[in-house]
């Protein structure tokens, strides 16, 4: 196998042919899995061959662009074993819904038609410009008309539709002058051709349509990407729940769960719906609701809320509220109002269009009236007005802004940052203060292994901690890679207590010292060693903060934790300001206060207690591990949770905004030369074609410059 395209792919065993069934065109995919980690040919091959080894799968096809795989199998089959197989092969996978295919608003076909029509008409126009006269010129004009009229009637429809929907409610938008220019140019040209005139504007009308459609296609792509990012996020939530049906435990889609169903939740899993505990006792992590990381004990009959993580399991629950009625959804709805206020953000393009649209109409109408009064020649006046309309073509607005946005978001996407809003780019570029949540964002709780522990004890500890899915155990196991796990027998995980096993002839135990105690111990026979829990910064935090400060940003920490803890962590990370002991509502007030002081605030947080603050901030970032409600409220998701992505993202967004402004400058420069020429009546179709093409190409080239990763 010669695929060594990506060095990060050592986990992907490239084995077996990916061809055959996998490479064949998919009939009808029945399942879709999300694969956030794939990035090269080796990944494609490994994923497809892994899936094709599964007995129920007829075909599997990876889409690298969308980071998904479509699978053809029996409808309604449980994909859990496939996900497990992919996970063994080293790929993270989640069940995802089918992406909705949107055919109706696809602009690629109009773009193609406009492009081909433009090239053909331009070919004929070049002959006219280079001196064709009389009947040859008329013939070429007629052929141009025969191509241009049907082509614009088809390809410019998106502009006509938008312009009409704005005019109908008495408003002007950018599509009104565009439609006007296209229709007038075509109409006037037909009149000119019928009367043997020298100038026809067919090529200009088509070029206008073509360049602006490119902009629209890019824009559409951007919005789709944002929407599919939102779909991807929805897929990260547990889509399946294990339901106890008689004696069996069967994995079901979450939508099928009804009130009263008995559910089976393993340790480390999130409670999917509101429920009451049926077993005697368990501990849960409710940090998403409260921000407190210490586990809470629940006994039989007590409620568990959707979003809480079961730490000791497995446990049986009985569902009490599902779907929109769960605590999680209700809280998400409460803050929905805070998000509406963000809809008022006006993007750079909107603000430019607000100036541009009336200006174009006024200049063109002025040129028409001026020439009409000066010469009394309607035809002459109309020709000048059309030339003005075409030359002021909003290419910079319609093409350059989406080109920059697509280049920037693609770069961010490749680094694992999902933008869920199309204005997030500009809002992130404008921030001057970054506010972090502490727990779960900047810090994590982990158990420390005492250095005095013997090698034997360490290998027992590793084996015990590997036996459990509890997050604290996983942390311990990850820190003990230097010893090999001891051979254990009779491993049992006991709810709310820990893991017990037999090692040689000793009884070994890892877990709470007493059921009511939060201190974790390792016990080998009667010898007990405590594993103190400490809160540490996540590895990327310090670096991220330093780089944010280097970018000239103020940093702050906003936490529900005690002042002492918060100060210590802030000092270690290098953060300037700290607010501690704040509840969710107070966090919201602090963010509002900062905004009132004129700061533009970026909030980085993961929990439900940050949800209101995230919604209120100018722009927000959440790690991929955040709760779904929080992720949905955030503008940008860092899939990997690597905090150093934040300064990188801000730099990219600032570059993007600078490029957009530069492009407006370039366009304004062109217009300041071209508009006087057009208004004074010197513009010919040739001049218009040259001006339009050069300005469009310059802004696009400038847009994509420097965004390659």
């Amino acid at each position, binding site marked *: 196998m010669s695929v060594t395209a990506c060095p990060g792919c050592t986990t992907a065993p490239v084995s077996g042919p990916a061809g055959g069934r996998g490479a064949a065109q998919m009939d009808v995919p029945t399942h879709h899995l999300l694969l956030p980690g794939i990035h090269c040919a080796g990944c*494609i091959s490994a994923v497809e061959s892994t899936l094709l080894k599964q007995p129920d799968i007829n075909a599997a096809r990876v889409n*690298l662009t969308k980071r998904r795989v479509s699978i053809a199998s029996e409808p309604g089959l449980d994909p859990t074993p496939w996900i497990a197989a992919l996970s063994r092969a080293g790929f993270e996978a989640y069940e995802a819904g089918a992406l909705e295919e949107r055919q109706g608003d696809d602009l690629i076909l109009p773009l193609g038609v406009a492009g081909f029509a433009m090239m053909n008409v331009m070919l*004929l126009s070049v002959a006219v410009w280079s001196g064709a006269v009389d009947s040859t010129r008329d*013939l070429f004009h007629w*052929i141009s008309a025969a191509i241009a009229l049907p082509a614009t009637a088809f390809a410019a429809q998106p502009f006509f539709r938008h312009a009409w929907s704005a005019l109908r409610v008495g408003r002007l938008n950018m599509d009104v002058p565009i439609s006007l220019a296209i229709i007038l140019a075509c109409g006037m040209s037909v009149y000119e051709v019928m009367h043997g005139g020298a100038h026809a504007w067919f090529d200009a009308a088509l070029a206008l349509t073509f360049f602006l459609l490119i902009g629209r296609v890019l824009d559409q792509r951007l919005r789709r990407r944002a929407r599919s990012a939102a779909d991807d996020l929805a897929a990260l939530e547990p889509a399946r729940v294990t339901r106890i049906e008689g004696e069996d435990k069967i994995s079901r889609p979450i939508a099928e769960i009804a009130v009263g169903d008995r559910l089976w939740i393993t340790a480390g899993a999130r409670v999917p719906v509101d429920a009451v505990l049926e077993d005697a006792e368990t501990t849960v992590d409710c940090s998403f609701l409260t921000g407190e990381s210490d586990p809470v004990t629940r006994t039989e009959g007590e409620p568990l809320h959707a979003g809480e993580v079961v730490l000791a399991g497995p446990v049986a629950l009985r569902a009490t509220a599902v779907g929109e009625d769960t605590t999680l959804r209700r809280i998400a709805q409460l803050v929905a109002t805070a998000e509406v206020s963000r809809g008022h953000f006006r993007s750079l393009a909107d603000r430019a269009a607000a100036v541009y649209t009336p200006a174009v109409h006024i200049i063109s109408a002025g040129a028409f009236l001026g020439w009409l009064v000066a010469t009394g020649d309607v035809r002459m006046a109309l020709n000048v007005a059309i030339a003005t309309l075409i030359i002021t073509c909003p290419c910079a607005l319609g093409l350059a802004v989406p080109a920059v946005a697509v280049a920037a978001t693609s770069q961010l996407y490749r680094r694992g940052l999902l933008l869920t809003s199309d204005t997030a780019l500009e809002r992130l570029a404008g921030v001057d203060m970054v506010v972090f949540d502490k727990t779960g964002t900047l810090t994590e709780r982990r158990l420390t292994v005492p250095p005095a522990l013997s090698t034997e004890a360490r290998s027992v500890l590793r084996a015990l901690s590997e036996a459990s899915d509890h997050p604290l155990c996983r942390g311990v196991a990850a820190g003990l890679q230097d010893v090999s796990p001891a051979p254990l027998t009779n491993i049992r995980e006991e709810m709310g207590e820990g893991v017990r096993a037999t090692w040689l002839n000793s009884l070994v135990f890892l877990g709470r010292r007493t059921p009511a105690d939060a201190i974790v111990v390792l016990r080998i026979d009667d010898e007990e060693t405590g594993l103190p829990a400490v809160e540490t910064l996540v590895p990327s935090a310090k670096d991220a903060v330093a780089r944010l400060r280097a970018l000239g940003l103020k940093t702050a920490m906003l936490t529900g934790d005690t002042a002492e803890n918060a100060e210590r962590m802030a000092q270690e990370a290098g953060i300037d300001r700290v607010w501690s002991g704040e509840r969710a509502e107070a966090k919201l007030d602090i963010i509002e206060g900062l905004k009132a002081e004129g700061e533009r605030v970026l909030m980085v947080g993961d929990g439900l207690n940050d949800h209101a603050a995230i919604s209120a901030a100018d722009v927000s970032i959440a790690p991929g591990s955040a709760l779904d409600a929080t992720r949905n409220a955030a503008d940008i998701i860092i899939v990997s949770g690597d905090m150093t992505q934040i300064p990188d993202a801000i730099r990219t967004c600032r570059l993007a905004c600078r490029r957009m402004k530069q492009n407006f400058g370039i366009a304004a420069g062109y217009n300041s030369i071209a508009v006087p020429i057009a208004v004074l009546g010197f513009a010919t179709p040739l001049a218009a074609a040259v001006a339009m093409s050069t300005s469009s190409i310059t802004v696009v080239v400038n847009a994509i410059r420097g965004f390659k990763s």
Partner: protein
Amino acid sequence: MNILVVLVPCSLFLGLGALVAFIWTIRSKQYDDMEGDAARVLLDDD
């Protein structure tokens, strides 16, 4: 100038042919996964 009678239809025909080919590429979903198609070239087994 009689050559135009041949060449103009010729160029139109070629242009139209390209347009039809383009429509075909859209219909057969060749723009769905450009990144993936670029990577698949490297696999020796399809």
